[in-house]
């Protein structure tokens, strides 16, 4: 499955990619933004930073048994700080289709074209 965020800033494109990651698992609008967590990542380039960010999110979902529906991302000098809001997985309500194993380097791209940033990769499910 591919995830792609498109937005006017790189940070917002990352946030949209995170939302797309949630959509691989469930309908994001079924997730109440009740709890907030913080994620940090650091990488030598934007593409690795995207993979690291998504993998950090996958780790948090797996270990906290949570799903997230709202994201706020800041990126400066190769460092990412993000806040994610969500709630504990409720199987009956969220009907999660699949767990994501990891974000991959396949179709990995972060770039700006015609004034819009794209952040994308394939995730393994």
């Amino acid at each position, binding site marked *: *499955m591919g995830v792609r965020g498109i937005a006017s800033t790189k940070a917002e494109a990352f946030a949209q990619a995170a939302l797309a990651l949630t959509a*691989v*698992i*469930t309908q994001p609008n079924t997730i109440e933004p009740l709890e907030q967590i913080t994620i940090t990542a650091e990488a*030598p380039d934007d593409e*690795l930073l995207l*993979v*690291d960010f998504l*993998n950090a999110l*996958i*780790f948090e979902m*797996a*270990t906290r*048994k949570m799903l997230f529906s709202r994201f706020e991302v800041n990126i400066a000098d190769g460092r990412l700080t993000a806040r994610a809001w969500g709630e504990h*997985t409720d*199987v*009956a309500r969220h*009907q*999660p*289709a*699949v*767990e994501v*194993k*990891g*974000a*991959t*380097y*396949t179709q*990995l791209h972060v770039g700006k074209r015609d004034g819009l940033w794209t952040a994308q990769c*394939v995730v*393994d*499910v």
Partner: protein
Amino acid sequence: MDISQFTQCSPTAWRIEPTSRMHVPAIIFATESLIRDMDHKVYEQITNLAMLPGIVQAAYAMPDAHWGYGFPIGGVAAFDPDAGGVVSAGGVGFDISCGVRNLLTGLTREDIYPVQKQLADLLYYKIPAGVGSTGPLRLNGDEMNAMLRGGARWAVERGYGRAADLERIEEYGCMAGAEPHEVSEHAKKRQHDEMGTLGSGNHYLEVQQVTRVYAPDIAQSFGLKEGDVVVSIHCGSRGLGHQIGTEFMRSMALAAGQYGIELPDRELACAPINSPVGQRYLGAMRAAINCALANRQILTHRVREAFSDLFPSADLKLLYDVSHNTCKLETHEIDGRQRHLFVHRKGATRAFGPGHTELPDSFKATGQPVLIGGTMGTASYILAGTQTSETRAFSSACHGAGRAMSRHQATRQWHGREVIDELAARGILIRSPSSRGVAEEAPGTYKDVTAVVDAADAAGLARTVARLEPMIVVKG
């Protein structure tokens, strides 16, 4: 794919001659029809694979090959450590040691029919499945490390199953060379409550009936006949393996340049086998193999408990447990010389033939069982390694059907409830926590597993022994 790009060696073997940076040729085993249906990315990925340092003989793809991450899924490649050979985290995949195990129940389909619904409900109750599910165990640091060293042997010592199970598991249930200290705390944390869980996606537990026997002698030796009921479990190393794959793919992608490896695709991230990163990965990956073997062993115990509630005298014996996402050190004869090679099988099953020294006595005459998973509405197959397996692709065969459409496309075409009702009308009971998950795994989303198995048989990769059709399916 366009078949004009290949040299046809036989009706089921297609060769790409080495060009530019390829060290060896690439060979795809498939019928013309399967090749034509394959994604062009398989061509690109199998030729990229042939460019990696130290690759021996050829880069191979199995009949179920499809677009993977660096390696095609259904890819097989062997590397010589003494010739600068590499180990690749992407070449094993995120779900390290994902595999299939098959249990003989000693029951017939007529035994199951009267209690089919009860058995489906009981198995669904006993087997934690789906996103966020947790298992019956919580391992502290020492026990986690003991599990990562001991695999299924550890599980048997803790009361999950019996000693006789171990010889019916590849590596006799315990992968040597596991290094738990190379497994990160993140990976261990991800596994903390996931021991004994099935997972989600294409993972499943099925009660199946044998509907056809193709090789009666081998089937008899395996303990299979038409009308028999078996249980198949398909899952892997859970969160621990996923985290190890994630972490080492990154380490290898960053380290490749230091070792002078020019990656044709970042996803082919690899490191020399004899490098610190390569050795650390092998230690962690082998620990993940043990995690998968222990996980399937615990699930086996739970299946036996469920069956004993309804069939107190049933004795569920393990036929075999195979892994189809691995890298293993094996000895293969190349040009008349025995060589020790690291064989990557990514979505490919080991298929040692009759007489292989690493097989238990019970499979010395038949070759090892090769367990091929199908879909919840079609069939799975049991094959056996043959004498020709070794000469084809380092004794490897296919692993499943392979997806024909994306999950997104599937949900536009099917609804979970409809799939469940349609299969129920055909006598197949589905139990799953996720309706969308069922739609994404609808039988029509996969390729024709029978065509894949027929091609593997015709190519001499393995011999078809029996066809299995589902009666009960537990999906994550």
